[in-house]
């Protein structure tokens, strides 16, 4: 369920659009920010608060890649491996992370602290290779820089 404050925010957002459906993405963001992923309960809550069918919310969630459909680690590490990053060594960054975290791409560490995934171009081609953790962009990476970033994550 959404909190009273969240519902108030959703009501404000509804006024920005002709139809409440437009708030689905933002309501899903609110749910994911709080719970870390979008569960069936989350989709139901979004459907209910906006008065749209559950199947519609499900359809939207499954179209976009940024909603986690299952729990992920506390820090989701997304390594761009698209062309500009590939040309500047994203392979090394990804391999290094796999070794350091003892996981394959797509896996979560047993302590649930890190999930490692590959990402498509994140618009950071001039500072490649890069990775995104949460909202933060970490750019111009090498192995030492990756180690430093990992050690600073609580």
């Amino acid at each position, binding site marked *: 369920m959404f909190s009273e404050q969240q519902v108030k925010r959703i009501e404000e957002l509804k006024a*920005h*659009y*002709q*139809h*409440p*459906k*437009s*708030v*689905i*993405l*933002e309501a*899903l*963001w609110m749910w994911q920010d709080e719970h870390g992923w979008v569960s069936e309960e989350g989709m139901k809550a979004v459907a209910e608060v906006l008065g*749209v069918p559950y199947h519609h919310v499900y*359809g*939207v969630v499954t*179209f*976009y*890649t*940024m*909603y986690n459909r299952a729990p992920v680690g506390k820090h989701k590490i997304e390594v761009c*491996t*698209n*062309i*500009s990053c*590939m*040309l*500047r060594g994203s392979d090394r960054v990804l391999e290094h992370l796999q070794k350091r975290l003892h996981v394959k791409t797509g896996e979560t560490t047993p302590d649930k602290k890190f999930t490692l995934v590959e*990402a*498509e*171009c*994140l*618009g*950071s*081609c*001039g*500072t*490649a290779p890069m990775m*995104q953790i949460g*909202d*933060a*962009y970490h750019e111009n990476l090498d192995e030492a820089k990756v180690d430093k970033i990992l050690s600073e994550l609580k």
Partner: protein
Amino acid sequence: MEPLLLPHIHNYHKIDVYESRGGYQMLRKALSMKPDEVTDEVKKSGLRGRGGACFPTGLKWSFMPKQTDKPKYLCVNGDESEPGTFKDRQIFEYNPHLLIEGILIASYAMGVHTAYLYVRGEYNHWIKLVQKAVDDAVAKGYLGQNILGSGFTLNLYLHRGAGAYICGEESSLMNSLEGERGYPRVKPPFPAQFGLWGCPTTINNVETIANVPIILQMGAEAYSKIGAPKHPGPILVGVSGHVNKPGVYEMPTGVPLTEIIEKYAGGVTGGKTIKAVIPGGSSTMVLRGEALAGVTMDFEGLKAAGSSVGTAGLIVMDDETDLIRVITRITAFYHHESCGQCTPCREGTGWMHKLLKRFETYEATAEDIDLLLDVANNIEGNTVCALGDAAAWPVQSFIRQFREEFEKRVAPRSAAREPETLSATA
């Protein structure tokens, strides 16, 4: 040329600094003009869209109906997801008020009272920066009701995406804004007739809109004299790959690609020679390194060279680059991002990727080169939106320009497998 889109002014993203340098004066100027006069000025300037298609901006605005009982909308496209493109993010970070002022002027010209800025979900950090700028503009009376006492009203809302390259396609963007799956729509009807919620809508790229206050500042005449005559103005060129100083550089249109690489981006890393260049983001056609002489970064210059400006995301590859790996990675991207609505794109991108994997692992047959080309040719032009074309063009051009690279990856005769048909379940 003095930078106009990204001027080197400390704290320019702050509204006080922006105002102290003449910021929001062009909004005042526009409000003193008739809306059609503003559109005419943009038409005369020769501004073309910076989102990839190079469509004349003023002409696009003039498609919006004058008499309608429906609300009209402006959607500003900040989805920026084309691999090799990272320019709009610079505007969000360093010059958000130029963008907001541009949105105000464009909205006034088209009689729009609600504008949306759609930004890719991964850019949440920059969404917060732009939201701060919007809040400051509202507080100063530049956005909202009765702006500067003119009677003109504009509400500007940021809309965060959630990870989908296709939502940078204008009709897909509108569906995403409506809270639907981001499937592109069949055109016609075009957005100016039937756009957001069936109402007249114009979609412009972030950088395009940021050019609008500059046009009013300089006057259309002076603006049209910047750079290439048929594609004038300042342009943000993103240089990535094997160069010493990758980054976004502002320059007039029409600068030779070799000058961009050597002068702006500091030359090729390690002093190597250039094997290939993708001039305008991953969907534009690849050029051979030795064929770059005289090719300029503008609509006509790149068209003559057999490619296009796209989003001016220049990707440089040195002589040691494995081009088969590059095209395989590009194709994997389009396969991943195909929305699945049209069969040729949904299936074809997967087939192309499967074929390219054979070249990557030296398991292809000689016939696979033409089979790959055949699949690409059957995607191109046969889909609702341009993603199909965007997936086909790199494959077609890599084969056309670098056929020898594919031939080198064919398996030795003895090791070659029997020719087979492609299965749909790649």
